[in-house]
């Protein structure tokens, strides 16, 4: 698409042997500019990932006088027979499946609202964005108090005659409670992204469609939504990845409980790796998590590209 269109003339030019030297110099400039980021990426991303691959097949421990030993697939055998692992995987998947559509949908709704040409939208934009700039740790602490059996939420529910449950203490409601707070915290960020997408849609399109007699809904389906295509792919992928890595809220509010109902893969990896000192086992969990995120991302890229080709 746009990226391709720009690069094609350049490619043609170099084929003609028109400016080889200049091209090479710009390549070295590009490489030099890439260096700082590349060094950081390699040191803090690529090398740890390679280490994880290696550690996952050993019995390495955080604190031990005995050197790590190669144990083959032992860690994975143990992992796949562990109930907590399957529950954590299920929780991670449920969390993602709920968060992705609900959070992006809500964010789009908010973006449409604050995009309306009425007074005071800046105020609402700020209000919706406030939770995003608040640290997740602080947000989790606040909601921890609100979710208490006699906390703010249950007090308000009791005013309208509903006896609220012990939100975080009941295995049936704990994950739901964490989902709600996570959406509340992050929805503002995606609202801003949607908003930037909305503002790139030319106003003439709306005027033209209005002249053609399109109603509000038809305008949304035929003008707004197609105009947001690129934005929606970006949002889909960022929300999915953020949802998979759920950790902070769980660590602060429930520590994976009650009865593993809020345990996630990342929480489990950190818990086994640090509290239980099993570095090798935690690396195996991270590896499974890596494979899962890789697979889902590939699938999403494949699906979204397919649709682009049809257009």
């Amino acid at each position: 698409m746009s990226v391709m269109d720009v690069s094609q003339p350049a490619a043609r030019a170099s084929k003609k042997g028109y400016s080889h030297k200049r091209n090479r110099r710009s390549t070295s400039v590009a490489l030099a500019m890439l260096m700082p980021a590349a060094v950081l990426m390699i040191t803090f991303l690529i090398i740890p990932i390679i280490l994880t691959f290696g550690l996952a097949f050993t019995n390495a421990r955080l604190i031990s006088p005995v050197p790590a030993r190669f144990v083959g697939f032992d860690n994975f055998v143990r992992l796949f027979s562990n109930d907590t692992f399957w529950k954590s995987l299920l929780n991670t998947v449920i969390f993602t499946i709920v968060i992705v559509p609900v959070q992006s949908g809500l964010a789009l709704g908010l973006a449409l609202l604050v995009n309306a040409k009425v007074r005071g939208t800046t105020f609402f934009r700020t209000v919706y964005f406030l939770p995003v700039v608040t640290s997740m740790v602080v947000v989790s602490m606040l909601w921890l108090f609100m979710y208490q059996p006699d906390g703010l939420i249950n007090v308000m529910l009791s005013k309208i005659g509903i006896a609220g449950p012990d939100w975080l203490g009941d295995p049936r409601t704990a994950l739901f409670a964490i989902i709600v707070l996570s959406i509340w915290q992050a929805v503002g960020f995606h609202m801003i992204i949607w908003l930037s997408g909305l503002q790139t849609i030319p106003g003439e399109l709306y005027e033209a469609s209005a002249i053609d007699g399109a109603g509000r809904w038809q305008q949304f389906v035929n003008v707004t939504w197609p105009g947001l295509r690129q934005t929606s792919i970006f949002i889909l992928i960022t929300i999915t990845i953020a949802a998979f890595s759920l950790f902070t809220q769980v660590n602060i509010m429930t520590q994976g409980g009650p009865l593993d109902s809020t345990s996630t893969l990342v929480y489990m990896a950190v818990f086994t790796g640090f509290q239980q000192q099993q570095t090798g086992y935690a690396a195996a969990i991270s590896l499974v998590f890596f494979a899962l995120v890789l697979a889902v991302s590939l699938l999403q890229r494949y699906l979204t590209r397919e649709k682009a080709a049809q257009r």
Partner: protein
Amino acid sequence: MLKRTAKLVATTFMAASLVVSITACSKGGATNTQPAAGGAQTLTLWTHNAGNKGELGAIQQVVDDYNASQTKYKVDLQAFPQDSYNQSVVAAAAAKKLPCILDIDQPNVANWAWAGYLAPITGMDDVLAKYLPSTVAKWNGKVYAYGYYDVALSWVTRKSILKKYGARIPTVDQPWTGDEFMALLKKIKDSGDFKYPADMATGWTGEWWPYGYSPQLQSFGGDLINRTDYKTADGILNGPAAVKWATWFAGMAKDGYMPKKSSADPAADFMNGKSALLWNGSWTAVPTRQKFGDDVVFAPPVDFGAGGKIGGGSWTWGYSTGCASPEGALDYLKFASADKYVALVSKDTNNIPTTDAAAAMVPGFEPGGKNDVFRQISKKYTMLRPETPGYPFIATTFTKAAQDILAGADPQATLDQAVKDIDDNQKSNNYFQQ
């Protein structure tokens, strides 16, 4: 196409790194013993007390006195915040830059001794014989660290409450029996005067769980692991006594005798009259006395059949294998173990002084003093957390099992799983033999 692939690879690496980067960021800087100017050798000392004014001041006083007392060594104190202290030590050990002298949370001593961080303390047997057993941390028959103080758990309540519901005031020699205790709770609950008859601080997390609740398990006759050889927990953590404890523990919440998840400040709830009895440490003595004066009672742990039990062990001092001058480190540890320093540190932290002589110097802890009860309880009922390098794993496994049981999991199945996990871990480490 290429660009797109690169983007894809970048996004996926970003995602995976979210996990991995957590592993990568625990490394910190460290310093080591260096010869200082003027001929004196510098010994680095690490403490977890940054931000903890009282105890840090007392330790600084000990260090200053030591430096003034001789010219051969110079101790250099470096304080860390408690939250990141253990990580700093582990990172320093990985980088072979351990400090010379350091303080260690007692349950970690065996683990760190096994890992080769700590060197055994020698030549102090006479001094340490006068210390409370729970403040001398041993592993494999050797002493690795000693502490100035301990804390004691007790049932905090009020004389007026016990009188109203017709319960006797227990003494250190005659604690409540399990039946007496449950009868009292039932009476209080039936009266409806309190939101909860008891509060066991179930809202706290981490090490509080094994510290606070494994003594109750031991009082029922169970334990965390078989302490004869530390090889298995089978029959100990999942035997009939342990299941009885688990059923009692879950029932306390289920029957409304205590909150399933206490608030962040259970002592405040007790003082505000929300609960009648509070399972808590000697640190609550100051605020509760302020509120209730002489009415407050610190009752010894309930005897559920195998005698009352409380946990023991707090922060202790030892020296590392990375110390360039073990003689210097031992010299400091000997100097610092004097009664007057035990008294000084305990006084500034309001904890139980470890020696009789020091107790006599700390107001309230002298025989017959108002805090003497904690020292009595500590002497009589303390059972140390298992001194095995596998303890950190045992502690977290027990915590998870107890939390699940409280949330309604089947006691027998949960404890069986915990036993299996603990046994696997002990075995996969070759039972921590050297």
